[in-house]
């Protein structure tokens, strides 16, 4: 029963997650950006833009300029998240790749820094009046969701180990449509339930900042409006327009 519920939940969650993100990316990709509105100073070459985006996405360059506290918590949070994701790949891939084995010891402790980062962000949200003002209930819940995922995960790593061989069998089974029983540990069920929830809301929430940042026109455009002509797709070509008459000639 439990296995069936979680198996179905994960199929749905994955479909919504992957389909939702694909749909979002499609929307952003197809929506035109008529003028070049890059925030300057900006790179004047494509390679320069790649470098700018790289610094932005991995090192949060703008955030660094802007607020060191948010930067620290956000880096703790996101860098830990990357490590955790890599580490978790061991539950989906057999045999486990070398990189994932390498990440294992760090990944274990990344759970702690992840929770620390989320707590820092939560504290800012609660105690800095400006940030409190802009926070909706969903902004708090999102952090609580992450904390829930992190703490339930940590409890399995450090307090109550679960049958990870069984967990791996369950996920490999999901992927090959050959269902295997899910170990029934409460911490695991909470952990997996919250992760599924996270996948379900991802495409409909501010979490789309992850794919979205790559489409940000103030960051991803080359500073070349004088060199490169970009017509407005919904406006007639300049050969088809009429000009205002000079002053004094209008009837």
């Amino acid at each position, binding site marked *: 029963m439990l296995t069936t519920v979680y198996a179905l939940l994960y199929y749905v969650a994955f479909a919504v997650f992957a389909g939702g993100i694909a749909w979002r990316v499609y929307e*952003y990709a197809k*929506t*035109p*950006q*008529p*003028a*070049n*509105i890059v*925030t*300057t*100073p*900006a790179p*004047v070459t494509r390679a*320069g833009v790649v470098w700018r985006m790289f610094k932005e996405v991995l090192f*949060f360059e*703008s*955030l660094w*300029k*802007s*607020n060191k506290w*948010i930067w620290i918590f*956000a880096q703790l949070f996101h860098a830990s998240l990357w490590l955790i994701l890599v580490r978790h790949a061991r539950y989906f891939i057999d045999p486990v790749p070398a990189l994932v084995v390498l990440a294992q010891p760090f990944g274990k402790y990344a759970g702690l820094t992840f929770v620390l980062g989320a707590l820092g*962000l939560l504290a800012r*949200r609660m105690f*800095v*009046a*400006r*940030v409190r*003002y*802009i926070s*909706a*209930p*969903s*902004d708090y819940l999102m952090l609580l969701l992450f904390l829930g995922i992190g703490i339930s995960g940590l409890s399995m790593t450090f307090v109550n180990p679960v049958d990870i061989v069984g967990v791996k069998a369950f996920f490999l089974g999901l992927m090959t449509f050959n269902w295997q029983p899910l170990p029934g540990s409460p911490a695991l069920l909470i952990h997996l339930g919250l992760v599924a929830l996270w996948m379900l*809301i991802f495409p*409909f929430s*501010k979490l789309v*900042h992850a794919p*979205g*940042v790559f*489409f*940000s*026109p*103030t*960051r991803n455009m080359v*500073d070349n*409006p*004088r060199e490169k*002509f*970009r*017509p*407005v797709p*919904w*406006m007639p070509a300049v050969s088809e*327009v009429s*000009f*205002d008459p*000079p*002053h*004094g000639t209008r009837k």
Partner: protein
Amino acid sequence: MAEDYKVIEELTTEEAQTDPLYVPEPVDGASEHIRSFPAAAEFEEKLGYPGERPANWQEVALNKMDELRGKFRSFRLFLDICVKCGACTDKCHYYMGTADPNNMPVGRQDLLRSVYRRYFTLPGKWFPSLVGARDLTEEVLDEWYTYYFQCSECRRCSVFCPYGIDTAEITMAAREILDSVGYGMKYTNEIIGKVFDIGNNLGLPKPALQSTLEDLEEEIEEDTGVPVRLPLDEPADILLVTPSADFFAEPHIDGLIGYAKVFHATGAKWTLSSYASEAANFAMFIGSYENMRRIALRIRKAAIDLGVKRIIIGECGHAWRAAYQFLNTLAGPCDFLDPKYPVPQHICEYTWDAIQAGKQKFDKSQNDHIKLTYHDSCNVARASRMGDYPGGQFDIPRNIIKAVCNNFYEMPEGTTREATLCCGGGGGLLTDDIMEIRKKGGSPRMKALKQARDEYGVNKMAAICAICKSQFTKIMPDHGFAVDDIMSVHQLVSNAIILPGSEQEKELMEEQTEERADAAE
């Protein structure tokens, strides 16, 4: 500051009065009373908007929002991806100056985002209060009008947002939506109407322009003994398009004299156009591509009619953005111009090239009474470039200044270059209706200026933006400066340039002969 302005206790403390980047705690509604006058029906209609608010205005506004999110990736994306991290909350000069949380960039975005969420996203449709979504009501519309006209579209927030979210894009879209239901701003929209009718923001018809330019020619000749021309509507190689304030306001006009002297000294064949007698493009402020294009096309037509090879833009911040980022897109391709030159060019690029060529003589001592600082105008800093490398827009004006002026000092770090603080009057807010927001929004810049004064004895500030210059003449007197302590960069050039055959050249030569004679003795 006038007494009837709203006083925020926290902002009266010593620290708040001296630290240019001081960030107050939010005070709800602190600037909700500052509202510009809406446009009359006649002016809305002239721009293609309804004169009256339609009965089904909600539907119209929401349709407009839907249309805009299909036309502009910036708008759609920025509404979606803000994570409410708060990094931008202390970056807006209007927030720093008013403490009103709706003037925090993300606060300003949320005024519209809350409605977008309600009607265009699943969570907003299903759980509005959970995600801070709200219905589009009359109060919301009024709130938009109030606060979207307290944004100067300066893009300071976009520099600091981890996703580059540019509140200016949201402001422009909001103003376009407001206009779509006949709720435009009097100041901006009347000005745009004047450009359509006459060709410039000031409504100066050709004869008035002609006589102003003739007066200036006389003035220059009296001053220098050289017949420097300011040609209007003459066939030429260079079309100069400059903000019309240059024809008439101080210190702008001294900048225009400076351009004319540089053109004269370099032997350029140049002209102004009465048809395109405006570089400013206020339609950018209201986010209207259609109206913006109508203005941009005037430049194209003038350039073709006058048979020029290059287009050069005078000192103006948003006009330089409108030219740099938009002219090609809206009125290009400009393949009838000489491909050797970028389209368009900035007057500072032209002057700096001329200085580098080394043929011009300058007497820097003419500016020795000045201890100068330089204000980076927002749109120049964050929405354009000069020269061929990123950041040229910061260096080229400074290079010119240093070539013509001996005493130059920077304002404190964090208030210049890409982090520059707005003058407080940009984005279409340069109207006396809302002097309170202009003064409060300008206060961070004023504090930075005062630091430079206290530290280095700075007594003048130069800028290359018509709006900045006008705004500063209004707000600097509140801070112990004189009206004429704001200068055009080309005014400094004008002071120092030695035109061949001029009185100044003679004087300089005499001085040098005397010096040599003294030395010989």
